[in-house]
């Protein structure tokens, strides 16, 4: 996601939306695991940003939209996600040997779907957005210690998947990575 120093014309919401959309969609996709949900989330967050553009633009619109997305996702999940998401739960755990044979990215996607949404949000904010723990804590309205423990638990849940790959496999991921 474009960082807060990434530039862009802060005066125009249209420019901001066009400039930040790809990264917001990617963030939403990783956060929710669903392209449709990601699009909904980005749309609603950008709309809210538009309605409060003066305030958001004066500060950090990317951070504002990101915060709205995370909070909306967690709220939505609390309301009805637990029921809806039953279909997303992978059939096997991340440490299931069968998953190691499948594509790493797909395995991660499935493993992330098993994590509690808050834990997943912490991982995404920490390892995709590279936000420091205090910023994540402020965004999620919890303490940095909670962020660290959530990240540790999430990482532990994914560890079998992340350490099982051979150097060759890990390098192979670059074909899709940055």
């Amino acid at each position, binding site marked *: 996601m474009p960082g807060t120093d990434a530039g862009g014309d802060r*005066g*125009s*919401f*249209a420019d901001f*939306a*066009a400039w930040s*959309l*790809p990264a917001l*969609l*990617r963030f*939403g*996709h*990783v956060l929710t695991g669903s*392209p449709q949900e*990601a*699009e909904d989330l980005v*749309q*609603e967050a*950008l*709309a*809210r940003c*538009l*309605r409060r*553009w*003066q305030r958001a*633009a004066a500060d950090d619109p990317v951070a504002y939209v990101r915060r709205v997305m995370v909070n909306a996702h967690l709220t939505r999940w609390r309301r009805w996600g637990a029921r809806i998401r039953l279909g997303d739960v992978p059939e096997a755990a991340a440490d299931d040997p069968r998953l190691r044979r499948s594509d*790493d*990215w797909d395995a*991660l996607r499935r493993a992330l779907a098993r994590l509690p949404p808050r834990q997943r949000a912490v*991982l*995404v904010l920490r*390892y*995709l957005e590279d936000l420091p723990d205090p910023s994540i804590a402020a965004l999620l309205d919890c303490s940095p210690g909670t962020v660290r423990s959530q990240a540790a638990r999430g*990482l532990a849940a*994914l*560890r079998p998947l*992340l*350490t099982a*790959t051979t150097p060759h496999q*890990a390098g192979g*991921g*670059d074909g*899709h*990575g*940055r």
Partner: protein
Amino acid sequence: MADENQAENRLRQLLRDDRWSLPPWADTQARVRNAAHRQRMTAAAAGAAAAAAITAAIVIPLALTGAAPSKAPAVTSPTSAANHPATPHRRYTLPPVGAPGFPAAIYPGPRRPHPVPNPLGHCPAPAGLQPFTAGNATTARALIPKLRRSFREDLRLTDRAFWPTILIGWQQPPRQGPAPGLTQRERLRQARGGHRPILYAGPLESYHQSEGPPDFTRAISAGCGTRLARDTWMVVDGPRTSPALQSEWLFLTRRGHVLLYYNQ
């Protein structure tokens, strides 16, 4: 520790995989604008419901205790234009039906809309509605810049169906500075007090929004009746290059008086 770093790096790598990317939208502005419309409608409906509840809480005890409506706190006078909505501690109240200056024939009580998705919290009463004329169209356009000068003037220029929104608007602090998202030229024009360009002025039923929903004609027909939709005059203004900042104004004519009944 090395394992920890390896796992973290691998996670970073996988989270940055291009397969998480989604194709950007071709219609970003329209999508966001429509979503903002929906959000505003929801907020306005909630606000109108709250205002109605507050009004009921004030009016019903007054009625029960026999207090005359005309003794309700006076609204701002037309000379109080300098008293912008920002005026702290000011209390605005809506005059009851038939109050002096607001004859019931021109300002009848609003109706409840049908329970369908509808941008209007209340429907204008159908009594006295007339088809729009060319002369009224000019009046409608001239009405827009007269708004937000005084509370009472706003009430005079609008239908009762819109009064809850007016009330909320005057109870909230004003927005400072230029509207967001304007081009430099538009900002300058706004700073000089210039008007917003009119993008459409015509019958509601003839307006074809180029960027999808909301379909006002259908929504208003379903919520408040086809007659209102048929007799509505619509004006759309704002920066052509920023659809998200454009406004829709809906007008009716009742017994020769042009009244705004919806704005977004």
